[in-house]
């Protein structure tokens, strides 16, 4: 197969898997743990290479996984025992571990292809040439195997523990009382985040990995109000932006990681503006509708107070409203037009009166 197709498969797998693994991080409001893991796996990776005396898939992977879990454990320890907030704990742990990795690289591996640039930004164009060889047989690019493995365990974990994860996330106390172990599920979840992050990290670098874990899930969270919906939409966004980003990068000869990360940013921004219920536009519209409805309520109260009284003819006219209710002319027009359209009020000549639908404005 041509390297081009491999690159599509690698970025697609990375996008899908990371987005799926990241969904629960967003739901649990601890997205930054992905940032911590994706950086602090570096010393473990280097340690794995050091033990194997050079780049080695297995030892590197185990080392990275161990330092990922060490990060999770340290953050957990600092937050639960030392009363440090999670964001601060993350900020304490990962720069230290990442720096450790960087120093180790410059000490022992200054001539190996493990430089800080490719650690941060990745070089996905080279990923197809990193082959997995077993007894002389070429089994294809390493990244495919890694990411395929990550995808399988992520999907298996999320499917197998679907109800347990839901309960342990929403109500850990009831989960404990019900005989489930939220802390075990927490570490399980962190393991799949680590595995996904490590697999993607090797192919696309730390920055895009963080983007792929966090942004699709954050986008999905705006669009769905169910766990299953967040998971599905997140995976779909991860997959499509990865494919589209790769295609655009090839078409216009740009950085693949950079293009995918940019697309992710655009997708999220567009969703934040346009999402049907949580989007900025929808929210603004909702607020305007509330304002008009509140004004109509005030109008009805005023009309009812003066209805069938001697001063009705002067009080309940449009011109008087502007003075009495402290409304501007244009706002009065808007409110009265809207109230008439909704039959909340009726108009005969200059005089206004409560309409047939007046009562319905109080039922919600």
């Amino acid at each position, binding site marked *: 197969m041509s390297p081009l197709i491999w690159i599509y498969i690698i970025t697609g797998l990375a996008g899908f898997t990371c987005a799926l693994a990241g969904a629960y991080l967003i*739901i649990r*409001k601890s997205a930054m743990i992905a940032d911590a893991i994706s950086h602090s796996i570096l010393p473990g990776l280097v340690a794995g290479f050091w033990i194997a005396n050079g780049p080695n898939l297995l030892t590197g992977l185990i080392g990275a996984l161990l330092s990922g879990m060490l990060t999770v454990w340290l953050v957990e320890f600092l937050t639960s025992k030392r009363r440090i907030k999670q964001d601060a704990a993350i900020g304490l742990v990962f720069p230290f571990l990442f720096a450790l990795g960087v120093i180790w690289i410059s000490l022992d591996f200054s001539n190996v292809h493990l430089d800080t640039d490719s650690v941060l930004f990745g070089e996905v164009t080279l990923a197809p040439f990193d082959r997995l060889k077993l007894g002389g047989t070429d089994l294809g690019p390493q990244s495919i195997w890694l990411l395929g493995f990550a995808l399988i365990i992520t999907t298996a974990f999320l499917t*197998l*523990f*679907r*109800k*347990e994860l*839901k*309960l342990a*996330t*929403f*109500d850990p*106390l*009831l989960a*404990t*009382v*019900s*005989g*489930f172990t939220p802390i075990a599920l927490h570490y399980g979840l962190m393991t799949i985040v680590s595995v996904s992050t490590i697999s993607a990290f090797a192919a696309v670098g730390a920055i895009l990995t963080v983007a792929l874990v966090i942004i699709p899930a954050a986008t999905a*969270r705006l669009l*769905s*109000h*169910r*766990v299953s*919906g*967040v998971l599905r939409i997140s995976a779909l966004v991860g997959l499509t932006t990865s494919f589209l980003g790769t295609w655009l990068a090839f078409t216009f000869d740009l950085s693949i990681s950079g293009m995918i990360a940019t697309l992710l940013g655009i997708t999220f921004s567009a969703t934040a503006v346009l999402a049907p219920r949580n989007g900025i536009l929808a929210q603004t519209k909702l607020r305007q509708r509330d304002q008009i409805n509140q004004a109509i309520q005030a109008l009805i109260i005023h009309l009812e107070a003066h209805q069938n009284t001697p001063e009705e003819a002067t009080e309940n006219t449009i011109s008087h409203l502007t003075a009495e209710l402290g409304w501007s002319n244009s706002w009065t027009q808007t409110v009265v037009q809207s109230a008439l359209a909704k039959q909340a009020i009726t108009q005969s000549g200059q005089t206004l009166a409560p309409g047939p639908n007046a009562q319905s404005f109080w039922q919600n």
Partner: protein
Amino acid sequence: MSNSLTIRDLTVSYQAEPVLFDIDLDLPTGQLCAIVGPNGAGKSTLIRTILGLQKPSAGTISVLNTPNPEGIKNLGYVPQRSSVDWDFPTDVAEVVLMGTYRSLGWFKRPGKAERDRAQAALQAVRMQDFVHRQISELSGGQQQRVFLARALAQDAPVTLMDEPFAGIDAASEQQIFEVLQSMRSAGKTAIVVHHDLETVGQYFDHITLLNRKIIASGPTSEIFTPELLAQTYGFAGVLKP
């Protein structure tokens, strides 16, 4: 009649100093039991310890004469409303369904039987019209009724509730009290941490006064006296029972 809850020589400490001292407590079955005391009296700690969420430094707990941890299986639980994230992406039906998870155990998915149980529980708290409502859109009283429905779906003989009447409107409070009454009619026991001294005498059959140790525990008529309340709250004249 057997006890719903039996506690002997219970002491619980977080740090150096015990929060609960030498607790001996016997609660009856089939009644509405209140646990009342000032802030910091250890009410929530007591609940957490009964549920096995907090390890005591000494003492034993039995539920329906079965010693813990085995006895915990007889317990339903309604946590404080503020203890969960109401932004969690789910609807009313799914939250109530969570009450059936314990009977399913690991891996097994809820089926028709569980859904029916959840539906019946929702009807009991008169929230059946809100099945598909997003939980973030519920009022405080509605949230509390959903929690109560979830406890009903747990179908436990003894239910512990942590401040179910906190911060809700009068109509919801009345409905929750009616649900408690129907639980009692069905022979179930509710053990409720309650803060409102105005209503405690009216709602509950049995009262336990707690302030880091048991001040008094017994039928409401014997316990709800100005002397004992003053002793619990540390000053006189707080109330008029």
